[in-house]
C-alpha cells in the first residue's frame, strides 16, 4: 500500500483510449515528479484533455495504467480528488451561483479549505463576492475557477489549457499561481498548453503530444539542449527543400535553409554535406521551433 510517499505525483504507463474509430491516446507513458511543473504540449485534438480526464478518474483506461500519488483515480477517486485542484478547459462553474456562494459551496467539499487564503485570492483577483457567475467576464470566470482549485492548497494542481483565450493580465495571474504553487515545498503542477512561451517560462519537464502519442518527454533543459537549429548554405539556389535525412524539418528558400535536428547533429551535418549544404551557423532551437518541427515530422 501507500505507506511511503511515491516519488511521482502522476504515473501513466501505456495508456490507450479510442473514441469510435479514433485512437485518442496511443500507448501514452509519462511521469510527473513531485514538486515539479510539468507542461503537456500539443495541438488541439492531440489528446491532452483526454489524458487529463483519465488522471481525474472520469475516464477508465481501456488499456494501460494511471496512478496519481500511487492511487488509481477510477478505483479511489476520493484519494485522488482530495489531493488535486483542477481547472477545466471550459471552466464549468455553476452559472446561477454568486462568487461568495461558490466559495462556501466548494469549501464544504474540502476539509483542508483555507478560507483566509481564498479571501486573499478573491481580493487579489478582484472578484466581487456578490456577482453572479453568469455575469463574470471570461477572465473573471477563469480566475474564479483558479481560486477554487487553489484554495485548499492541493498537492497537485491540474490545469487544462489555463490560458487559452485570456488576456495577458489574467494569464499573468495564472502563471503567478503556478509559480507560487511550486514555490511552496513539495507541491506539483501539471498543465496543458499550446502557448509555448508560457511552457518555456514555467515548466521543469515537458511532454509533446501529437495524434494521441507522446513523441518527446524530458526536462525542458534536456529537450532544448538536444535540439539544434542548423543554418545550411548551398552553392546554388534550391527550388524544393533539400532532402537532408535525419532532420526533423527543413525550411527556407534559395541558398539558405534552416534545419531542426534532434540530437544527432554530426549525422545531420554529414547528411547535409551529401546534398551540398554547408552549416554556416548553429544555434539552440526555441521550444516553438522544436514543436513546429515535430508537428511537421509527425503529420507527413
Amino acid at each position, binding site marked *: 500500500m501507500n505507506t511511503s510517499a511515491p516519488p511521482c505525483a502522476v504515473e501513466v504507463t501505456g495508456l490507450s483510449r479510442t473514441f469510435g474509430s479514433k485512437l485518442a491516446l496511443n500507448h501514452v507513458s509519462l511521469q510527473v515528479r513531485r514538486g515539479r511543473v510539468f507542461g503537456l504540449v500539443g495541438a488541439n485534438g492531440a489528446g491532452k484533455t483526454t489524458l487529463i480526464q483519465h488522471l481525474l478518474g472520469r475516464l477508465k483506461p481501456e488499456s494501460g495504467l494511471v496512478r496519481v500519488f500511487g492511487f488509481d483515480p477510477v478505483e479511489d477517486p476520493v484519494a485522488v480528488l482530495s489531493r488535486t485542484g483542477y481547472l477545466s478547459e471550459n471552466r464549468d462553474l455553476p452559472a446561477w451561483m454568486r462568487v461568495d456562494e461558490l466559495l462556501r459551496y466548494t469549501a464544504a467539499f474540502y476539509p483542508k479549505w483555507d478560507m483566509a487564503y481564498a479571501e486573499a485570492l478573491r481580493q487579489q483577483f478582484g472578484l466581487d463576492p456578490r456577482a453572479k457567475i453568469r455575469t463574470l467576464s471570461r477572465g473573471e470566470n477563469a480566475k474564479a475557477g483558479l481560486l477554487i482549485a487553489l484554495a485548499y492548497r492541493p498537492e497537485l494542481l491540474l490545469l487544462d489549457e489555463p490560458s487559452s483565450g485570456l488576456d495577458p493580465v489574467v494569464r499573468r495571474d495564472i502563471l503567478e499561481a503556478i509559480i507560487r504553487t511550486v514555490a511552496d515545498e513539495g507541491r506539483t503542477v501539471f498543465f496543458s498548453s499550446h502557448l509555448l*512561451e508560457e511552457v518555456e517560462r514555467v515548466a521543469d519537464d515537458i511532454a509533446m503530444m501529437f495524434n494521441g502519442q507522446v513523441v518527446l518527454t524530458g526536462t525542458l*533543459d534536456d529537450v532544448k539542449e538536444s535540439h539544434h537549429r542548423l543554418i545550411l548554405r548551398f552553392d546554388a539556389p534550391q527550388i524544393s527543400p533539400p532532402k537532408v535525412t535525419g532532420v526533423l524539418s527543413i525550411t527556407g528558400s534559395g541558398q539558405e535553409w534552416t534545419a531542426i535536428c534532434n540530437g544527432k547533429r554530426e549525422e545531420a551535418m554529414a547528411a547535409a554535406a551529401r546534398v551540398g549544404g554547408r552549416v554556416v551557423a548553429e544555434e539552440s532551437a*526555441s521550444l516553438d521551433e522544436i514543436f513546429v518541427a515535430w508537428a511537421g515530422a509527425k503529420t507527413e
Partner: protein
Amino acid sequence: MQLHVSTGDGVPIYLQIATQVKYLVASGRLAPGDEVPPIRVLAHQLLVNPNTVARAYLELEREGVVHKRHGSGTYVSDAGSPLARKERLKILAERVDALLAEARHLEVEPQELQRLIKERSQSIQPKENK
C-alpha cells in the same frame, strides 16, 4: 534589479538571467556587496520557474560573481575579481566586433581604425593628463 527574459530565440532562460546579472555587475549597476533578490521574488517578478532562477544563481555562484551568506541571502562578490574584468572585456569585445564590421562595410582598414581610436582617445582625455 531589472532583468528581462524572452523565449523566442532559444537561449535558455537560466542563461539569460545569469548573463544579465553578469552584465549588471560588470557595468557597475550592481556593486560588490549588493544583495540580489531572493529566488522566489525574482521568479515572481520575471514569471519564471523558481528552479530556473536557482540554476542561474548556482551558475553565478560557481563563477564567483555572487556568493551566498549563510541564512541571509545572495550577494554580489568583489568586483576586483578577474572574472568581472573578463566580463567587462567581453562586453567591449562585442562592441569592437560591431565597429570592425562597420569599418569593413565602409571600406576602412583596421590599421586606419586603430589610428582613429588612438586619436579619439587622446582627444577625449582630460587636459591635465596629457
